[in-house]
């Protein structure tokens, strides 16, 4: 019997860029993984390992030089980029909220394809991330932890099938960090969202991951369950 398509699959994914001074520079080489519904893949490795490059390819913010990416069995290149990005939400290291109110930010994603969220829907999303009553707050007045929670709610407003998290707690203080991590773990469990979580914290990896991809210098060093990869 043929295997059902994975939610997200990378096959021999590579990216090389042309450096003006140094010539071709390989940022990512032959990355493979396969994620089923609700699985969390933690991507770990030192700075410059290619973790963020991988995430940018998964959101198609950059183009792979070779290899293939499949969403529910369909090649990324066959999906219109804006539609693909709605289906694959991304939370970046910094929140990058847009100027204006929290509600404007929450409504932004759905509004891009003509869906207008009602006040109750905005409130429900804010409640989900522990920010009830913040809808009319100006984003300029939020703390780092609050802004990151809003950026998570903003990504969830599109109901993504896959959530990409690019070190979402690295810019936060310890108290906010623990709160945001708990929130993300809860969201992934409750919604059964398939997730790729870039982190450099091994303790966090043990807490949240089903699979770990360890990277160095743009290639995969190991891929497997946390105990197998981290204790090797």
């Amino acid at each position, binding site marked *: 019997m043929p295997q059902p398509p994975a939610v997200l699959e990378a096959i021999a994914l590579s990216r090389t860029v042309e450096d003006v001074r140094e010539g071709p520079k390989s940022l990512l080489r032959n990355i493979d993984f396969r994620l089923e519904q609700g699985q969390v893949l933690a991507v770990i490795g030192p700075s410059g390992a290619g973790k963020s490059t991988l995430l940018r390819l998964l*959101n*198609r*913010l*950059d*183009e792979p030089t070779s290899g293939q990416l499949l969403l529910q069995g369909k090649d990324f290149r066959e999906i219109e*980029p*804006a*539609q693909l*990005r*709605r289906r694959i*939400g*991304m939370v*970046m290291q*910094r929140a*990058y909220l*847009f*100027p204006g109110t929290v509600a404007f930010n929450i409504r*932004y*994603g759905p509004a*891009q*394809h003509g869906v207008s969220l009602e006040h109750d829907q905005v409130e429900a999303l804010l409640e989900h991330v522990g920010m009830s009553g913040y809808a009319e707050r100006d984003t300029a007045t939020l703390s780092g932890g609050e802004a990151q929670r809003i*950026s998570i709610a*903003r*990504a969830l407003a*599109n109901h993504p099938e896959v959530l990409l998290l690019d070190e979402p707690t690295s810019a936060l203080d310890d108290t906010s960090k623990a709160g945001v991590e708990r929130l993300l773990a809860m969201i992934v469990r409750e919604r059964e969202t398939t997730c790729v979580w870039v982190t450099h914290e091994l303790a966090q990896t043990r807490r949240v991951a089903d699979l770990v991809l360890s990277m160095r210098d743009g290639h995969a060093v190991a891929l497997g369950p946390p105990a197998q990869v981290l204790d090797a």
Partner: protein
Amino acid sequence: MLKFLFHTQVSLGLAQAAVVALVTIIVAQLAARRGALIGREVPFALLRGLLQILAVGALLALLLRGPWWTSIPMLAAMILAAGTIIRQRVPELPGAYSISLLCMCAGAGGVIAFMAILGIVEPKVTMLIPVGSMVIANNMNIQALFLNRFLGEVRAHRGEIESALALGAKPGSAVAPYLRASFDASLIPAANNVRSLGIVWIPGIMAGMVLSGSSPVYAALYQFVVLGMIFTAGAISCIVATQLVPRRIFTPHQQLRALTR
């Protein structure tokens, strides 16, 4: 004082230009010592500007007696030259030259043609060249300000733009706030000129007309017409630019290009 030393009009003009250039270079060098990069460009820009305007003066002396249509290649050449200058201001923008030409043809070219057809600018060389050059020169500055500001905004807000893309926004929507900010900023000088007309400054064309014997009221009205043309041409070229520029800074797969200088 110079009048006592130089007795012909040409020698007096050269002396006046030399004094102004000297003062400008001294001020620019003072600015350069304080870290302003523009100071290094000034001596070359002054020399280039002087040679260009002398060449144009000589050419105008020949052309002013010609038929009206000789102003068309002159104005077209001005637009081509202005496009080159704009491209040098924004070398990191792919296709900057073609964008500038299209925008200026639509803005400056369209407004000059429209005004000439209506008879607001008399269709003769002595009117089309000086008025047209003013509109084109200002249009060039407005375009350069627009593109420079926009690329600066994009570089400064790369994170916000990619966040918008990641939320499913199309490139045009992702950069819309920065296009608006650049549009407004680039038209501030032209808008200020219209607002301050007659209060803060009396522009050159009006002064020239009064000196050459025109009625001051007609000269004032005509100056208003010219400033209106400059503002309208600038706004049209910026509107065209807002349509063309986003396509150049994104890849066909809606990815923001690296815009390094």
